[in-house]
């Protein structure tokens, strides 16, 4: 049986993502209880950066043509090789589109238990127990994994990043035989904007039905979001009415988000929308209807006309510089 914790450190063109530091910080805490070392895995990059300073004793790297762009086949093979090399008790990965695709296959291949989209992790009796939302956050449960290896994907922004007090990591390059991927990437389509994904965003501005049109959405919601570098979201009603694309929908049948700041503009707060954003640390509601359920869930509320409030707020945010 293995010990210690392996963290999947994701990166964007070699720049390590915040989720890696969140997971390393938590892994350090957990390893202090369950024992073993903390290591990290970099797929498609070989510069460990400051992963060592955040607690990774060893950084396993996997590089080569097969890893320049995500494929399920290559990533599962890399994960398998890193698990063989590190022999961990626990593997933590961010709940990114890539990990969410690869981990079920990995779990089935290894016959290991997997908890997805967890938002809490703690050591209990020498094992790691997770907490995760169900029904898009309308309920929560503990998740216990039996067996020698526990796999978890963790929702971004679930844990704070600690101090960089560690040393430098030992880098171990793994050679991984991938074979022919079953699914080939033939093209990539860039996102329409340059903001981070809703599921990873630290700030979100969302518009609802009361925005009334796509033109208004582009005129009031997007500039407000841009003024604080926030990612744009939308309610199901706004998406169904064509004001915003499906990829921007927040809620039980859209993205479930976990930002520090969520600004809901012209959103009444239907139960399925609340389910998707209720774990946001600070919620601001701007709505004309004082009876709108969103106000019962918001930290700060402004009862008012969004068409008056949004331009003023955009201006104030811009003034912050």
């Amino acid at each position, binding site marked *: 049986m293995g010990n210690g914790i392996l963290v999947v450190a994701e990166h964007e063109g070699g720049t390590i993502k915040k989720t890696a530091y969140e997971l390393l910080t938590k892994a350090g805490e957990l390893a202090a209880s369950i024992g073993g070392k903390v290591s990290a895995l970099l797929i498609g990059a070989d510069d460990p950066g400051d992963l060592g300073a955040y607690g990774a004793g060893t950084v396993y790297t996997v590089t080569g043509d097969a890893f320049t762009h*995500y494929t*399920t086949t290559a990533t599962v093979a890399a994960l398998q090789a890193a698990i063989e090399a590190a022999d961990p008790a626990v593997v933590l990965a961010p709940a*990114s*589109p*890539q990990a969410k*695709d*690869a981990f*079920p*296959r990995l779990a*089935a291949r290894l016959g290991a*238990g*997997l908890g*997805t*989209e967890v938002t809490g992790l703690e050591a209990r009796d020498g094992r790691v127990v997770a907490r995760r*939302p169900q*029904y*898009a*956050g309308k*309920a*929560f*449960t503990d*998740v*216990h*994994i*039996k067996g020698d290896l526990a796999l978890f994907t963790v929702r971004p922004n679930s844990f704070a990043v600690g101090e960089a007090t560690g040393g430098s990591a030992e880098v171990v390059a793994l050679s991984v035989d991938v074979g022919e991927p*079953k*699914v080939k*990437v033939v093209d990539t389509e860039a*996102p329409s904007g340059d*903001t*981070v*994904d809703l599921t990873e965003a630290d*700030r979100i501005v969302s518009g609802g039905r009361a925005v009334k049109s796509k033109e208004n959405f582009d005129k009031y919601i997007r500039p407000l979001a841009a003024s*604080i570098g926030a990612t744009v979201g939308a309610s199901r009603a706004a998406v169904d009415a064509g004001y915003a694309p*499906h990829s*921007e929908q927040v*809620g039980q*049948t859209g993205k479930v988000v976990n930002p*520090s*700041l969520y600004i809901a503009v012209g959103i009444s707060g239907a*139960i*399925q929308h609340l*389910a998707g954003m*209720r*774990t946001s*640390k*600070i*919620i*601001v509601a701007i709505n004309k209807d004082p009876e709108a359920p969103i*106000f*019962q869930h918001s*930290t*700060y509320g*402004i*009862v*008012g006309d969004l068409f008056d*409030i949004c331009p003023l*707020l955009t201006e*104030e*945010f811009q003034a912050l510089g």
Partner: protein
Amino acid sequence: MKIGVLLKQVPASDARIKIADPSTGIDTADIKWEINPYDEYALEAALQLKDAKQASSVVVLTVGGADADQRIRDALARGADAAVRLDDPAFEGSDCLGIARILAAAAKAEGVELLLAGKQAIDGDNAQVPGMVAELLGWGNISVVDKLEFADGTVKAWRASGGGARDVVEASLPLVITCDKGLNEPRYASLKGIMMAKRKKIAVKGAADLGLDPSTVGAAAALVVEDNWSLPPERPAGRILEGDDATRVKELVRLLRDEAKVI
């Protein structure tokens, strides 16, 4: 080509969730059930391939009890040709890997070459089963697809890769594909469809019918155990800001900066 659609019934997305017992789960007494919304996109994609004569038939595969029959009937009424409900006391308490073993065995038994599923079921939100089925069958898989083209046994799909970006991928059958909102507009059942569905039979199969070793599924084989169910913590009542628009906006920015420290 025969298509299998993985279909699950879930509490409606507007359902209020109550906890029955912290050790076992939610109170289902007042729950209205519906087809998992993402499975509806999978079903519609399958039916469109059949309409375009690229699929010979569509079979619905569901793990569950007789209470799921109404949802399966709905799928048959929309145009699915056949349905298999996988039901056996040995299946009780399966985790995702157990469910995947059942569905993989059923897919094999039905001789399907393409499995379509929702990107996740909106009850457990695990998003595990389809990828596991693909691994167990040794098939390729494509996750979270919102555009799909099919020609001569080759699939071209657009899958989410984060931040609104998409990968365009190509693969050959056999495949497991999970479907996202935006892929299509699911149809409703027509009156004719509803009448025809009454004559279609829902086959019920257990471990023995599938040649499945019952010790590999069910609660005893489960590696993932969930307990300690609770509702999310209530948020404290918020503060409604007072004054004219300019005053309230200034006050909001001050609170976000100085009190909440999020900007």
